[in-house]
């Protein structure tokens, strides 16, 4: 008798793989990365390469050491590497970037079980660790196009501190800052691409940016300046939409986004730190399991349980 394959239904699938999703995220990050290289020079590309390579190597070694399946093929380590690089100033020494990759991949991701299991965003946590460990190197902002003048890096304040950049410069990214966060336009293009491919939902970004703009407006700050400066667009579209560390339902994503916006505003307006995006996302990551508890889907035709 000829042997046939017996498996439970369904017998068909739509062939979207984890690596397809990650590849799309990488594609979406490319415009912002390209603009970063244009504004801050080729060292931006080099720094990104260092982050990506070290992330992939750490992931590979970690899985090997833990005797688990090799997961570098799912490209999630590449995504983490690119996002981490975009969160760093272009002048950062390479060895510090490797430390950041170690924190992101080994401590935040693999020690908690690998892809999908981490409770905090690897890139954000790495950025915060680097920020607290190497405050000077992490705030060494260079002026845009410094490399064209043929001089060594000239440092200047970020628009968040100076508060004097034009809207157009902010929108196009011709300001100081981390290498991937300055150009709001490129990040917006990437975010909308992901939304169009139904890879991310716009619930969290809209909640994030909306809450920040509204609160800034109420507090008498310039709302447009608030959302265009700093890492708001990078955080909102690429880190507040991370699958593993944000709520799974649309309701939950909206709550998450609003929370990010509120915390960012509080840190910026009342705190001594100029930038609050990273901390707001990390704090909301921690709250995610609780948000999930209260934002479950409404089940069709379910009776309310009496004991609850």
């Amino acid at each position: 008798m000829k042997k046939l394959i017996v498996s439970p239904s369904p017998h068909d699938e739509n062939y979207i793989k984890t690596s397809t999703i990650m590849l799309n995220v990488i594609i979406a990050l490319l415009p912002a990365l390209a603009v970063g290289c244009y504004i801050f020079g080729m060292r931006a590309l080099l720094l990104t390469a260092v982050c990506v390579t070290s992330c992939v190597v750490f992931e590979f070694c970690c899985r090997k050491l833990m005797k688990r399946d090799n997961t570098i093929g799912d490209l999630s380590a590449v995504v983490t590497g690119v996002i981490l690089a975009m969160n760093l100033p272009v002048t950062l020494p390479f060895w510090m970037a490797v430390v950041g990759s170690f924190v992101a991949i080994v401590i935040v991701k693999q020690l908690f079980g690998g892809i999908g299991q981490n409770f905090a965003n690897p890139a954000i946590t790495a950025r915060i660790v680097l920020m607290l460990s190497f405050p000077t190197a992490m705030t060494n902002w260079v002026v845009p196009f410094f490399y064209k003048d043929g001089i060594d890096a000239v440092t200047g304040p970020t628009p968040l501190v100076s508060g004097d950049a034009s809207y157009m410069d902010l929108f196009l990214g011709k300001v100081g800052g981390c290498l991937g966060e300055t150009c709001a336009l490129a990040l917006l293009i990437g975010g909308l691409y992901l939304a169009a491919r139904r890879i991310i939902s716009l619930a969290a970004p809209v909640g994030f940016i909306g809450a920040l703009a509204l609160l800034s407006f109420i507090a008498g700050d310039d709302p447009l300046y608030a959302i265009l400066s700093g890492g708001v667009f990078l955080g909102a579209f690429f880190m507040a939409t991370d699958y593993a560390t944000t709520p799974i339902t649309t309701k939950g994503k909206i709550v998450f986004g609003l929370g990010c916006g509120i915390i960012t505003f509080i840190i910026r307006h009342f705190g001594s730190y100029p930038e609050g995006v990273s901390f707001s996302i990390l704090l909301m990551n921690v709250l995610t399991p609780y948000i999930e508890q209260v934002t479950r889907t409404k089940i069709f035709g379910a009776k309310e349980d009496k004991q609850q």
Partner: protein
Amino acid sequence: MKKLNGIKLNHRKNTENSATVDFPLPSRVKIPMWMNMGAPCQPLVKVGDEVKVGQKIGDTDAPFSVPVHSGVSGKVTAVSDYRTVGGALCKAVEIETDGLQTVSDDVKPPVITDKDSFIKAVRESGSCGLGGAGFPTHIKLNPKTPIDTLVINAAECEPYITADYREMIECPDDVIGGIRLVKEQLGIKSCKLAVEANKPEAIKCFEKMTEEDDSIEIITLPSSYPQGAEKVIIYNSTGRVVMEGQLPADTGVIVLNVSTAAFLYRYIQTGMPLVTRRLTVDGNAVGEPKNVRAVIGTSFREIMEFCKTDIDSVIKLIGGGPMMGMSIPDMDMPVVKTSNALLAIKTYDDRKTSSCIRCGRCVRVCPMGLMPADIDRAYKIKNIDELKQLKVMLCMNCGSCTYVCPANRKLAETNQLAKSIIPRN
């Protein structure tokens, strides 16, 4: 009105324009005694007996059951043990055909005087849900609660299958006749014939036929899977919600498959019980995809050969659609009452399962609004309270969650396993 989630599938209705072909009489048939939901039948014949077309060859006293009839005339050669696709054991009657197809004297139009005699006749017809689930029709048509709406399920939302569609195109009078018959006998006021939008020919045909009749409404449903699932089609055609633990009849609705309705009409006219069925034969190993009308008990292998299938290349056989159909373990298994399709597949991509990345696609597609990713986690640690809270019992195994999962997690399967560890009270 809240819209239920659904997914867009590649319909692959390759056979929609293939008129049904009669499968030539096989030399022998193997008729299982258990082809529908309910209790299995006991064989009424023994080895050596002569049987005729339409003769009852299996029955039982259990009320939740349907008798079995022979579709051929010939001699019983064996009464053997038989394992169904679902894995249960029952008897099967093997008959060698004599080619004469002598019709039994029992085959005569039933006398219907009242509802009770109608329900009795429906049971004697051997009818069960022909859409694939195989719920006994006489039980469905005899609910304890008053019914005001009859929903005819003509969604046929699974890819490939066109068996119901061909029924509508080839026998529209039987469909309408069946609807009127059930409405009259059960005193149901209104009927909704629900068809997916990908069958415009059928919709046009029935709209024309029911122009004068206000009690039958043709409803065009969007082509979205699983549109034909009972709770989904009830909600989308009547707006009623079948609550947890309820039957459709509790909301005043009966859902009947369109081919079942047509069969009932033919049975009342001719008295010929359910001994043949139309099935769509397709899949990438099939050379000539067709709609075939075969005698129940015909082996799948012969049907595949009839459709020019390269038997050696087949590595997977599916009875039913690719979303909810069952894997057939053996090519020599027979066509049963619920076989609406036979898909012979020669490619199988056994992708590895990886970790859940919490992308939420399963949550987004579940028509019931369940959270398969969370159920998966709760099942892993056997957290029964959590599984109950997540209402895993409401899963109808439509398979949408597994279909969309990028990590290739078998979420629908996990839901079924999770159901099995919840104690029933």
